[in-house]
């Protein structure tokens, strides 16, 4: 069976850090997405984490200029909180990324973390991940 196609990209904290450190593949992927009319999405909680943990905030700003920041509210926040509890993690940013990927059928771009797979399993989602 061939893998299911994805409609877009969601960036996790790893994508923001990769852009901030000048990872050229990350920027090439971002350019490719925009050139193909795809606006990557970032959960608001991930944006907050990015600005909390990254020194090169100017580069995060350059990356985010071409993204949609999705509010972390309502049903998506509730689902993320419940799955974070089931996965015994306080990493709400990662769980929110997987929640968004599951809901919108997106591929994930972020750093490899066990919590991603755990959250995907909890959501019953087949995670497609580019690990930066």
């Amino acid at each position, binding site marked *: 069976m061939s893998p299911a196609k994805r409609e877009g990209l969601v960036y996790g904290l790893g994508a923001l850090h990769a852009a901030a450190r000048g990872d050229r593949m990350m920027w090439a992927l971002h350019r490719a997405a925009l*050139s193909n009319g795809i606006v990557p999405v970032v959960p608001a909680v991930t944006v907050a984490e990015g600005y909390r943990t990254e020194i090169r905030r100017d580069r995060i700003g350059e990356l985010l200029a071409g993204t949609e920041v999705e509010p972390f509210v309502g049903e998506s926040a509730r689902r993320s909180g419940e799955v974070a509890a089931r996965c015994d993690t306080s990493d709400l940013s990662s769980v929110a990324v997987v929640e968004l990927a599951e809901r919108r059928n997106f591929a994930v771009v972020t750093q490899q973390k066990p919590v991603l797979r755990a959250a995907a399993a909890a959501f019953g989602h087949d995670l497609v991940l580019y690990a930066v």
Partner: protein
Amino acid sequence: MVTKRSVSLDDEVASAVEEAARQDGVSFSAWLSSAAEKQLRVRQGLRGVAAWEGETGSLSAEEVAAGEALLARLRSGMSGVASRVRRR
């Protein structure tokens, strides 16, 4: 706040927008506004890429091609891990 503008569209485009708006469950105006917003994001995003390139050097043709190939893989549902792209 909403601004009213009079815009002209090709008949075929207008029909296609009407159909798309109906399928998406939004008004004609909301659909057009959303499409314009997306286009503006793409434009701003490519300016962001250009700003980064201005600081670190333009992406080479090889790097651009690698980004396109990676995007195609992800869209087709295949995972991957970072690999280095040779810098120009």
